[in-house]
């Protein structure tokens, strides 16, 4: 393992050198600090509770490089994947790198652009926001993301501005991503009373390419700001996808996140929400689908550090074939966080005997005047419901598909965008109707 760490440490240093100081002293210093932090942390191992059920052996065996290579796609192939609804702005990333010619960023009252551009011009205000919520990283991969930071979205909505239509972040990976670790980082900042709707998708242009998407997302909502955040991970069947989302919520801010993880060979999404001031609200919904050869992991970490904040999480998973899922939902209510409301629920539908789920909802409550609940369930399809559907002429495959779509529906409905709802229902249908 030490050898591996040294190898990636050197790889990261080479990556920093290859940038020839174009990031400016401040960011270069941060990158170097992140490499040192990585060397201390190493890669996560199964002895740490948070990684106990999510092995990284496959990823380590495969290895990855830190480079800025990408393969352009025909314009029409990219456009076909655009969100169908009208958008306020769009940022397209191919193999982890921003594509200005496919993007659209002219918005009043909103600053939308790429981190790459900010690095190129040495935009101090943007660069100093890097790591403001994540620090140097909670685990080795997150430290590597900062060390080898390539690109990402920078979105800043000015005070009082409402952006009705979605801001779309579209990530496409193709052959050019083969063998690479992409290290994007998104910085989202909503100033006081601002509101926006962010759609973030990870799609594969080629179903079999093997790559590693190692991303970090830092979202700050100032007083009374509100963000709807719709995310879909539909990477290639061979891909590794790791995402750390950090939320910093100020007074009365409102964050509504809905996640779907349906692709990738291995994917892990962690949402870390820190309530910084009273009155904030955080809602997270999620759906995961894992079949043969897939592992999906969601880690939620809600930190009620101040009084009178609300959190609600509802995650549902469908496991088929030899699919594996990990769900870890931690709610911490600290001593001073009186008047907290925190509710967490996780339900898993197992379609096969070989499927596996490790579900762990946890409440750590140190305040007394709080309302908290949590629950996890694991169940199968109801035979009587299958009979009912078959008695109406559906074959067994259709019956199972309808019931699975029904199970997932509660989460699918949380996606505001109709085309995303359709995309998801279709994926569930295709995957489950053998």
């Amino acid at each position, binding site marked *: 393992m030490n050898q591996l760490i040294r190898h990636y440490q050197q790889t990261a240093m080479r990556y920093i050198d290859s940038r020839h100081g174009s990031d400016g002293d401040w960011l270069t210093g941060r990158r170097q600090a992140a490499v040192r932090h990585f060397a201390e942390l190493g890669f996560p191992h199964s002895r740490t509770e948070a990684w106990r059920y999510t092995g990284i052996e496959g990823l380590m065996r495969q290895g990855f490089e830190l480079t800025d290579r990408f393969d352009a796609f025909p314009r029409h192939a990219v456009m076909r994947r655009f969100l169908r609804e009208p958008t306020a702005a769009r940022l397209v990333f191919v193999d982890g790198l921003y594509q200005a010619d496919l993007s659209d960023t002219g918005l009043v009252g909103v600053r939308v652009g790429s981190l790459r551009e900010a690095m190129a011009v040495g935009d101090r205000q943007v660069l100093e926001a890097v790591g403001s919520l994540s620090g140097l990283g909670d685990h080795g991969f997150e430290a590597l993301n900062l060390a080898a930071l390539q690109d990402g979205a920078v979105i800043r909505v000015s005070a009082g501005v409402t952006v009705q239509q979605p801001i779309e972040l579209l990530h496409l990976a193709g052959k050019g991503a083969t063998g690479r670790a992409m290290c994007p980082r998104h910085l989202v900042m909503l100033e006081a009373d601002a509101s926006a709707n962010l759609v973030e998708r990870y799609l594969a242009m080629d179903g079999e390419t093997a790559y590693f998407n190692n991303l970090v997302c830092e979202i700050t909502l100032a007083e009374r700001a509100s963000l709807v955040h719709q995310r879909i991970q539909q990477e290639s069947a061979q891909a590794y996808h790791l995402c750390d989302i950090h939320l910093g919520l100020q007074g009365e801010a409102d964050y509504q996140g809905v996640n779907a993880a349906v692709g990738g060979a291995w994917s892990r999404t962690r949402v870390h929400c820190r309530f910084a001031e009273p009155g904030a609200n955080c809602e997270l919904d999620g759906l995961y689908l894992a079949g043969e050869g897939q592992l999906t992991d969601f880690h939620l970490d809600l930190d009620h550090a101040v009084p009178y904040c609300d959190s609600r999480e509802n995650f549902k998973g469908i496991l088929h074939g030899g699919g594996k899922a990990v769900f870890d939902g931690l709610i911490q209510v600290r001593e001073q966080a009186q008047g907290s409301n925190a509710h967490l629920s996780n339900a898993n539908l197992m379609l096969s005997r070989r499927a596996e789920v490790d579900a762990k909802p946890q409440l750590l409550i140190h305040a007394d005047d709080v309302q908290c609940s949590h629950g996890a369930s694991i169940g199968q399809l109801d035979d009587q419901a299958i009979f*009912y559907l*078959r*008695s*109406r*002429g559906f*074959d067994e495959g259709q019956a199972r598909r309808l019931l699975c779509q029904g199970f997932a*529906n509660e989460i699918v409905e949380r996606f505001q965008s109709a085309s995303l709802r359709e995309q998801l229902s279709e994926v569930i249908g295709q995957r489950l109707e053998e």
Partner: protein
Amino acid sequence: MLSIKHLSASVDGKAILKGVDLEVRAGEVHAVMGPNGSGKSTLAHILAGRDGYTVTDGEVHYMGRDLLEMEIEERARQGLFLAMQYPMELPGVNNMIFMREAMNTRRKSQGKEAMDAVSFMKLVREKAKLVKLDERLLKRSVNAGFSGGEKKRNEILQMALLEPLLAILDETDSGLDIDALRSVADGVNRLRSPQRAMIVVTHYQRLLDYLEPDHVHVLAEGRIVRSGGMELARELEAKGYGWLLDEVAA
């Protein structure tokens, strides 16, 4: 159309049906009455293909085919429909989509084109009006949180859409208010034709007054113990089952 010969069946080793004989020809309406627990739903379930029952003896033919050998969905696609005594709830499955897909599956098996969403919507609204089903229920999950009567109306709506050849109604009238009973009876009567047949399981004469069945049967202790016409239903309404069971025992 349907020929049941000496059908015997058990559940968990307990004999429930003990030699049921019943002939149903196209165009006929048969009523099946009988005390609670006598095996009426068991019979209906076996005809629809629900598991959990072991057929220990006898045979059933439907449209010349061995019904018991047919898959559940194959029976449905060949026109058999069971309106259940306790319809299942399907959380998250949209009622409208469920009915449209069911209808299109049936059409496909008849070699017909699938119906587009707009024409289907029109048709389902029309039929919902006939069975007096609140249109809002079409937007909800199938039967989930429906009242008892709403579930029954939803069954009849499915029947009206699927236009089965053999409809089996298991106590569809129980739990219905008087107006709904009337509309269910109208729905059934509208489906009546020389090509179709129905088996109506009921405890009440009221539905039979509307339907005027050709035959009335009493199922007791796992067998059809008496068959007759409407007069038998009237006699049962007036006197209950005791006298009949005594006569059979004697």
